[in-house]
């Protein structure tokens, strides 16, 4: 009898249930964050740890506010580098993948070198680039090297994953290569391309940071990574933390923006962007 009564009410409640679940998923990480910050502050205070060893979150936050003019300038520089590297990686990766798709000869000739570029640690290439290229260019090239490969390989995979029957249909209607690319291959590859871009966003930030650190030791530059290195030499630990905080925030925002763009572009048709009820 009780189970009989319970079933309709539970069936009528799916919406509040999912909403509550979403709230929980949002609140739990925030709770962990708050607990971590409190614990951090307590450890620093109770043990009287000096700020040049481990600053408390309060000190880090104060530094963030005090040094905002310097740090915001550095943040802008790093973001600009990241953006340039990302755009270069996106354009380069997609164009290269399309060329590979159109010409097997080109793919066989060049793909191994794309792989080599990817597997060689960028931190080892950066100093060389800084010798041969102007610093700003070298930093962007670093970001590009790290970020372009996921775009290239994902786009290639997407272009090769076209539905066989749809390809037959295009053949039947006498579609040209350009038409097949534009109306069939690129749209089918879009989810793959967007996945590649999402990875590339984070990676271009890493590339920019790596290059800045390599360049920073050569004595120039004003990006966030340079601030971290510089603050380290000066034992300005709170500023190191503040700069690190900004880098993480930048990474999160970049990922969020790309995920949002991807969702908006795919929401009408792709499984990954559809609600569960469909």
């Amino acid at each position, binding site marked *: 009898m009780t189970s009989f009564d319970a079933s309709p009410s539970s069936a009528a409640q799916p919406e509040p249930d999912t909403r509550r679940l979403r709230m929980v998923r949002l609140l739990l990480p925030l709770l962990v964050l708050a607990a971590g910050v409190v614990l951090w502050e307590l450890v620093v205070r109770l043990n009287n740890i000096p700020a040049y060893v481990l600053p408390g979150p309060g000190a880090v936050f104060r530094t963030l506010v005090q040094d905002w003019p310097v740090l915001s300038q550095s943040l802008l520089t790093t973001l600009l580098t990241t953006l340039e590297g990302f755009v270069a990686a996106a354009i380069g990766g997609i164009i290269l993948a399309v060329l590979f798709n159109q010409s097997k000869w080109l793919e066989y000739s060049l793909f191994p070198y794309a792989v080599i570029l990817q597997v060689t640690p960028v931190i080892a290439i950066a100093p060389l680039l800084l010798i041969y290229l102007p610093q700003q260019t070298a930093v962007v090239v670093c970001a590009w090297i790290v970020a372009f490969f996921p775009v290239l390989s994902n786009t290639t995979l997407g272009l090769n994953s076209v*539905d066989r*029957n*749809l390809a*037959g*249909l*295009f*053949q*039947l*209607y*006498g*579609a040209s290569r350009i*038409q097949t690319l534009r*109306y*069939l291959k690129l*749209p*089918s590859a*879009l989810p793959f391309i967007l996945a590649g871009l999402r990875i590339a966003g984070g990676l271009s930030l890493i590339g920019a940071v790596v290059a800045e650190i390599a360049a920073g030791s050569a004595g120039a530059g004003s990006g966030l990574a340079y601030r971290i290195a510089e603050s380290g030499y000066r034992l300005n630990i709170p500023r190191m933390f503040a700069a690190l905080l900004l880098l993480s925030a930048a990474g999160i925002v970049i990922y969020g923006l790309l995920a949002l763009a991807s969702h908006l572009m795919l929401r*009408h*048709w*792709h499984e990954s962007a*559809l609600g569960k009820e*469909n």
Partner: protein
Amino acid sequence: MAGPAALSESAAAPAGAAVSLRGVTKVYDSGLLALGPLDLDVRSGEFVSLLGPSGCGKSTALRLIAGLKAPTSGSVGVSHHSGQARAGHSNGFAIGFVFQEPTLMPWTSVRENVRLPLKLAHASLAESDARVREALAQVGLTEFADAYPRELSGGMKMRVSLARALVTDPDILLMDEPFAALDEITRFRLNNDLLSVWRNLRKTVIFVTHSVFESVYLSQRVIVMTSRPGRLSTEIRIDTPEPRGEDFRTSAAYAAYCRMVSNALAPSYAGQSGS
């Protein structure tokens, strides 16, 4: 790819025949003889079913006629007598193809899916708009023009696929087990709709199926094929006049034809014991 088919177009195709195959064989890359030798003539405006066990090469035959594959030997003749055979789009405008799956582009609307053949032929937007509307009306999907394929049921997706094949107003409609994946009720309805489209437009239809009941219900002529390599086994003429409807499906004549076709098909399955 289009070489051998184009060459034979002028050669074969006797008067009144829309499609004619002469000694056509297809050997796969693995060396397996999949089809033939097969001779087949389909009159203009005729509804013909190719019936046979799975793997007998009936789909391959359809793809050869469409020019999607080239025959290993023999000739495939396709005549397009109407004015649709524009330069550069010979096959595309003479032939409409409906695959076993709906084969729709999921990223765009029903309207744009149906428009695709016209877009590939660089038709003007005004002209294609009118023809897309007409094609959607023929399959009863006018209200769903702006829907995305994922929002449609299996039967509706298949209708979109049919509308796309009709939008170029082709002479010949090739259908490769189009309703095989649908439930029986939807299938019956689509059978009726296809028949009414055929009655109105008088296209030449070549319909591949492995359903005896479907082939008898739809066609004027059922071609029974042998198991691999697919050859012509028997040909059965279904003389029941049009229009056929649900009465025909339950009539004694229908049952008799089904029995006849089943018997004709039995030897094709004899070799495949256990399957």
